[in-house]
């Protein structure tokens, strides 16, 4: 066992140096190392084609790792066929068997495990009650709405009491309201039952609200693995910063690094203070990122060491709970400031010149992609 594996050996699910290639020329998954603790809710988040679904399918056993090892509860499972892994799975389009009733669908995994009829019925009813679908055992999947099918798919993945459940964009086909409701239900169930969950999505809100940990995938690599709040507030590189939530970015050059602050000369010529995250030496190009809600136009709300900069108001959008003001800052015309709709909040007129500012620690100097 190499160093990485030893590091992760306490994990319930461990990816150890896993690589995957479909055509022998390009790697879809490049050197994946990941450990999921027992009972953890981990989300693999990323744009399509980032390798997240492939990682999930390798864990489920539907794809084989080209190299590296996947461990489940300490045991390598690369050569274990999917039906012997005992992993529950919820598919994107639910994959409820259309020729069986809801009850038969749920009974199926118990049947193939050789469970007796009365035990089966008891477990099926318990699983259905768990998702509040007890009255639907005799319906066909086609007679159910999308949200109901989703619940049944969830119940079916849980009915044989797996320790690990995988979910492949399970809420993608639902409308917004239902999706938010199901997000809550899934996390509640997962925590109540104490199961380990690996969840794949491209929806960052879903990832942030549901997970204990989020792994952001891009280009076959995990860009950052962190709890949601850390991921949002301390993105480690510019991809993560851009992918999670909204972000203002301005490119510039590092002029000076002093411990945990650095001076960046923006391309417009302005010098600002920033927190060096992904820069190592003076003269390097960098991309500084500031969250729109951390930008403030009211000097009184900022501490004394806040950095102030001139900006031109281009657009003001009233969004109800917040105001969204688009500004031109240091040559960047897509700089956004989000302010709370408070009684004393100023509604800036387009064309006016204002002064905005932020705390230096909220301005993160990240790598600058080509």
């Amino acid at each position, binding site marked *: 066992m190499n160093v990485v594996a030893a590091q992760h050996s306490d994990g319930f699910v461990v990816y150890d140096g896993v690589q995957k290639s479909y055509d022998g020329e390009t790697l879809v998954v490049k050197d994946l190392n990941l450990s999921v603790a027992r009972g953890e809710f981990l989300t693999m988040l990323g744009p399509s084609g980032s390798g997240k679904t492939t990682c999930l399918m390798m864990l489920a056993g539907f794809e084989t790792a080209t190299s590296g090892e996947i461990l489940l509860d300490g045991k390598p499972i690369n050569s274990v066929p*999917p*039906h012997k892994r005992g992993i529950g799975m919820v*598919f994107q389009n639910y*994959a409820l068997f259309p020729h069986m009733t809801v009850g038969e669908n749920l009974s199926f995994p118990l049947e193939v495990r050789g469970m007796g009829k009365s035990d089966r019925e008891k477990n099926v009813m318990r699983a259905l009650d768990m998702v509040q679908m007890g009255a639907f055992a005799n319906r066909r999947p086609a007679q159910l709405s999308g949200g109901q099918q989703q619940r049944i798919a969830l119940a079916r993945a849980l009915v044989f009491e797996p320790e690990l459940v995988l979910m492949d964009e399970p809420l993608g086909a639902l409308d917004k309201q239902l999706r938010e409701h199901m997000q809550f239900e899934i996390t509640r169930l997962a925590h109540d039952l104490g199961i380990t969950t690996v969840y794949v999505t491209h929806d960052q809100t879903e990832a942030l609200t549901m997970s204990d940990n989020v792994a952001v995938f891009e280009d076959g690599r995990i860009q950052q693995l962190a709890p949601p709040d850390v991921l949002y507030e301390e993105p480690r590189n510019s991809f993560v910063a851009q992918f999670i939530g909204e972000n203002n970015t301005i490119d510039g050059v590092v002029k000076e690094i002093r411990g945990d602050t650095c001076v960046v000369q923006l391309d417009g010529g302005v010098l600002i203070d920033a927190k060096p995250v992904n820069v190592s030496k003076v003269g390097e190009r960098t991309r500084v990122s500031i969250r729109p809600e951390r930008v403030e136009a009211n000097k009184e709300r900022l501490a004394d060491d806040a950095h102030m900069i001139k900006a031109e108001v281009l657009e003001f959008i009233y969004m109800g709970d917040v105001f969204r003001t688009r500004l031109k800052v240091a040559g960047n015309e897509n700089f956004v400031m989000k302010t709370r709709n408070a009684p004393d909040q100023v509604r800036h007129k387009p064309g006016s010149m204002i002064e905005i500012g932020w705390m230096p620690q909220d301005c993160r100097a990240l790598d600058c992609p080509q």
Partner: protein
Amino acid sequence: MAIQSATSEEGAVGTATDSRGRLVTSDGTPLRRALERANRRRKLTALALVAPLLAFILIFFAFPIAQMMWRSVDNPQIVNALPRTLVALEDWNGQGVPDEPVFAALHADMMEDLDRPRREQAIGPLGIRLNYELSAARSAISRTARNVPDFDAPYRDAFTDAHRLWGQPELWQIIKREGRPLTLSYYVAALDREYDAEGNIVKRPENRQIYVSLFGRTLALSLAITAMTFLLGFPIAYYLSTLPMRYANLLMIAVLLPFWTSLLVRTSAWIVLLQQQGVINNALVGMGFINDDGRFSLIYNQTGTIIAMTHILLPFMVLPLYSVMRTIPPTYLRAAKSLGATPWTAFRRVYFPQTLPGIGAGGVLVFIISIGYYITPALVSGQSGRMISNEIARHIQQSLNWGLAAALGTMLLVGVLVLYWLYNRLVGTDSLKFG
């Protein structure tokens, strides 16, 4: 017309009813009539689109079938030719040879017929008709008819002298029995039965029973062919359904290729391959698997019929299967496996049941086509692989017993309809997916 507008306070904005409480449109026409008028144009268009094919089907499909079914019971020949004889026969008790008045009536009937223009003469059809029942009857009739003008009373002796058949009670029993405008005798014959001297329907002697066993064989062969197309077609359809679309289309052309080749060419190709001195036997002998005396009989028997027809009907099984399998997402199999089912269980419990509509459609298509198939069995069947359609063709083309051919055809049609009905009862035709 008294129109009472519903007020908006009642919450029914824009609806109005006439004095009888029917809904009306804003200009006062009853809603139902307005809707009918609006839909009429669409219905007329639909009718105009369907009408040419409907007329074609009625004239060239429904009408000939009705006529064919009519022909299987139509029996005008004896009634037309021997009206007086039939009246005279009413007093005959069916035993022995009838008495002189019957023969006198027969003489009168035949004399009258000779006076008719040649095209209207009923004696010829009479001979043919009687010959179906009694094999020497045609020559008896025609030979007698030539001499009838020279006959003198007593006619009974004159007739029995002219041909011995007139002195046999059997002929007279047939004339009396079949002297009606409608008959069941074709169906009696088609079921391998005949009338005995007392007029009861009994089984034919075993050496003359053909049709029932032929129906049975046709059924068995059709089932075998359907089973073979299923066994060969299912894996192909499955493989095609898993391929990317462009490869699947390419291979589908290969499956459809037989459709674009002449049936005769394909069947002849099988003859070349399968005959005793054919490619397959020669290859087997050449490789030493069998010796020269042990060549397989692969054609001109049931084997040949099954092989050739399986090949020809295979696309009819593959196409519906493929179109159904295409719609079954692979995630079902994955889901089943993730739930703990072995690949075989997943296939058996999850995939296979979902292909049933395709299997049903393909099976019904292949079975119904093969049960009435003619050309291929005619070319490669020999004696043991003959099917009922070959017998029907023989009666139409050679023995010219159209009544019997029609009876056999009607039975085939009814048989297929019964099977279809049964299928519908057991499986339900609404679940069929033909493409």
